[in-house]
């Protein structure tokens, strides 16, 4: 007993420390509105600035990390044996908070790197083969991203000869923007660069997955917004269109792969890719409008982006925490082994349902609000009459509507297979209601989702400060008509409060009416199964079966291998055992990453044979050659 005690202290100490420091940074940022200060050290000066944009992110990170820390106070008990988790998690969150308030390139890069390293340490925390593989891929990809970001910062430095962000305003041209966006989209998990995300997010402990999917990917969005709307010289409208289309494709691919998963956390990780895609669509639209000078469209799309960041962060972190609890209490993340959890975990299932509804954009929750704004901005972009934009926004509308419907199917599958029906295996039967602190940790973001969805006027009013900082305009928060398109006329109107009041009113009338005018007798009986007495609980509809018909229609998205193995039995239709395996491979991985990997190995092998000789003279020769190359570079390029 005494042996365990210090470990418990680690968990409690660092969870409370995270909460306290998150609260501290929130108040610090609110108190120092628009202030800046510099920490001087002998080596580098760290400069910080509390712009409205940074404050939004500080509050966003702090809020979600407070929820996650509350959750970890209890959830983390299974990691007490190796308390390094809590230390890393604390520094991970701290580095993100400092990242968004940093005001010079060195501070930004240092904390960006710290964030990457701590998240890498958290990914490999479990230490098994899967985690190490995922960790390596993550480390590699994230550093390719960092290289690109650093390169774009160096180009900015060469252009302005300053480290401070204050001098970068309007300095970034197309090349700098392209490099930075590519670098950041690796971190955001946008489609061609997403391969690390579905490996790295699920293997980390659930509270870390929640922080990575809910917060960390948004740091990339922070960087992109900073580059596109603060540093950009305002050229290259095609960049906006590229972002729009890449985002739309990423959304569709993300949700199509999410649908194919049976691991709950992997499904959620793919859904993160989808949501990042939706955010990218908004960014692309907004940037295009900035360059082409369609002011009201720019503000509107920016509002969609910011709202989606907030609503995705809240609902995704709550869902990841929920999946962690499922894992903790049933010892499996495979939804085909679960089922019937809502009888055992009643309150968790309600919270999870609301999170699922918010992320699949069901009205009236916050996910719908942001998607509604995105739809309205896409329609408005058609009204601009710009030929390219009309063309691409129609494609984007088509892809977005398909994504929305597929998200509904995916999350029906997630909730239906996991929480409804009957327990498929022993794992699901042993589940019990999670501890109250864990439920509170999930309930808080879920409640915020409901609040933002029903009463968004306050948050839109606050987001307006950020929209003003980034774009120089605001969107009227009330009424939500706010949608002044090109001819400055209200285009459409969505009044969440009115709609929800109407919904509640009719619901109560219907229930009241039926209570009076109908029979209230109830009988509990077996589920009808054609009169058969089905004992096999696995004979329920499976998750794979649920999505197979949709996957069959969209089969060109996947490269799947399925196989049925059965013992060579005499009885043809009454086999004692048959095994069905299905493997869904990522087509990007199969057709891009694996060939590149093979090519790289081949080239390096050839190089290895050429260069690495046992003869010392040749090695010395190479040394001499590289020295000369450096001299030439110095003389011709830098001089």
């Amino acid at each position, binding site marked *: 007993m005494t042996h365990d005690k210090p470990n418990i202290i680690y968990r409690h100490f660092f969870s409370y420390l995270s909460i306290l420091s998150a609260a501290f940074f929130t108040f610090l940022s609110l108190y120092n509105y628009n202030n800046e200060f510099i920490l001087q050290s002998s080596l580098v000066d760290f400069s910080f600035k509390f712009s409205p944009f940074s404050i939004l992110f500080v509050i966003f990170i702090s809020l979600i990390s407070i929820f996650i820390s509350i959750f970890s106070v209890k959830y983390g008990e299974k990691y007490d044996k190796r308390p390094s988790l809590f230390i890393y998690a604390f520094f991970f969150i701290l580095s993100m908070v400092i990242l968004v308030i940093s005001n010079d390139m060195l501070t930004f890069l240092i904390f960006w790197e710290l964030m990457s390293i701590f998240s890498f340490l958290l990914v490999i925390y479990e230490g098994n083969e899967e985690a190490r593989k995922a960790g390596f891929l993550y480390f590699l990809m994230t550093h390719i991203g960092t290289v690109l970001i650093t390169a774009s910062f160096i180009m900015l430095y060469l252009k302005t000869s300053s480290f401070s962000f204050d001098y970068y305003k309007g300095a970034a041209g197309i090349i700098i923007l392209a490099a930075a966006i590519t670098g950041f989209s690796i971190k955001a998990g946008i489609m061609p660069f997403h391969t690390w995300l579905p490996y790295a997010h699920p293997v980390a402990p659930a509270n870390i997955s929640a922080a990575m999917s809910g917060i960390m990917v948004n740091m990339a969005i922070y960087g992109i917004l900073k580059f596109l709307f603060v540093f950009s010289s305002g050229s290259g409208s095609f960049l906006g269109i590229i972002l729009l289309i890449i985002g739309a494709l990423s959304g569709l691919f993300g949700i199509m792969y999410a649908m194919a998963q049976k691991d709950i956390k992997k499904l959620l990780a793919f859904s993160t890719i989808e949501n990042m895609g939706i955010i990218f669509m908004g960014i692309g639209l907004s940037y295009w409008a900035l360059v082409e000078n369609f002011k009201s469209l720019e503000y509107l799309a920016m509002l969609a982006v910011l709202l989606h960041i907030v609503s995705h962060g809240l609902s995704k972190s709550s869902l990841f925490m929920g999946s962690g609890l499922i894992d903790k209490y049933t010892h499996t993340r495979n939804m085909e082994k679960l089922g019937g959890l809502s009888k055992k975990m009643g309150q968790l299932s309600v919270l999870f349902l609301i999170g699922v509804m918010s992320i699949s954009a069901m009205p009236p929750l916050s996910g719908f609000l942001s998607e509604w704004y995105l739809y309205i901005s896409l329609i408005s972009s058609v009204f601009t009459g710009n030929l390219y934009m009309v063309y691409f926004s*129609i494609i984007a509308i088509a892809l977005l509507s398909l994504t929305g419907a597929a998200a509904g199917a995916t999350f*029906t599958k997630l909730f239906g297979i996991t929480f409804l029906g009957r327990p498929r295996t022993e794992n699901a039967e042993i589940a019990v209601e999670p501890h109250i602190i864990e439920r509170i940790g999930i309930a808080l973001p879920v409640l915020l989702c409901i609040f933002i969805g029903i009463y968004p006027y306050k948050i839109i009013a606050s987001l307006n400060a950020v929209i003003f900082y980034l774009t120089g305009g605001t969107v009227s928060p009330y009424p939500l008509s706010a949608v002044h398109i090109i001819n400055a006329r209200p285009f459409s109107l969505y009044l969440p409060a009115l709609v929800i009041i109407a919904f509640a009113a009719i619901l109560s009338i219907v229930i009241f009416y039926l209570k009076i005018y109908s029979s209230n007798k109830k009988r509990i009986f077996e589920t009808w*199964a054609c009169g058969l007495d089905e004992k096999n609980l696995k004979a329920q*509809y499976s998750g794979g079966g649920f999505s197979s018909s*949709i996957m069959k229609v969209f089969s060109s998205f996947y490269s799947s291998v399925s196989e049925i193995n059965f013992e060579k039995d005499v009885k043809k239709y009454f086999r004692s055992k048959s095994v069905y395996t299905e493997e869904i491979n990522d087509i990007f991985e199969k057709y891009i990453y694996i060939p590149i990997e093979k090519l790289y190995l081949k080239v390096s092998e050839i190089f290895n044979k050429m260069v690495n000789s046992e003869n010392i003279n040749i090695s010395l020769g190479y040394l001499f050659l590289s020295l000369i190359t450096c001299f030439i570079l110095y003389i011709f390029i830098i001089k």
Partner: protein
Amino acid sequence: MNYNAEHLALGCIQFFIIVLLAPFFAGFIHKLKQRARGQKGINILQFYINFNKLLKKEVVLSKDATLISSLAPYIVFVSYLLILLMLPAFYRYSLLGVSSDVILIAYSLALATFFMTLYAMDQGSAFGGLGASREWFLTVLSEPSLIFIFISLAIYTKQGRITDIFYFIQNGAENAFLSGAHSSSVSIAIPFLLFISLFIVSISENARIPIDNPETHLELTMFHEANILEASGKHLGIYEYGSYLKLTIFLTIMSLILFPYMAVNIYQVPLALTTYFIKMIILCGLIAGVEIVNPKMRVFRAPNVLSVSFILSLIAMILSIRGF
């Protein structure tokens, strides 16, 4: 829009009339089909009688049912009622017309589908899972068309609210008719294309032949019915009523796309109501006709039909952006 007492009163009356008429339209289609097949056919008010009967019966809940089973029927039903609150049928100012955004309507339909499929999966019945899977299969294919239809209308009329959209079409048509000149703001092709597209979507969304058969309870062919197989008593009653409402919603939108006539004041209401009723009867006949002449198709042929609908709405959208 500023609402006064007249607007609210007429909006209420409109809402109640459509809600009360919904089982009649469904019954009328059923009757037509049966007569065409040479059967005697049900009482045209049979669905009212069924609803009343179902309310009197007890609810049998599965022992594996959770909160979802008792909640979902109401949410599905109320989602459709909410859409009917927004939808103008024969009076321009529907009760919730101020917030009748087209995207909201499309997503409210998705909300109903979401809860109905969760209900289906709640009791652990294999039929439920099958029904939920098929329902989403169709929804994934038809939802893009539906949103495209709505957005084409929004782009064509430059309005985002469904009440404004149809008022705009109505005004344009009236002006073109009265002045005799071909008004540039009116297009015949766009509503026509959207009508055909929406017709296909309605058939798929409302579980009609050739995609699905609303009368069947054969395990292999059920779509919609498999979802509500476990429902009984008043739950089944409001599910059935909900499906009549959904049919009415789609038929009403179709009637408004092709021939919008909405009253703007109390004096026009009787004429508008009569026109609405006649239009709906014709559309019911159309649906019944399609159901009679077509056999049910294989599940995996549904994507072909729905992609035709998508292409038609895409053409309509391309036509509607010509003006900018």
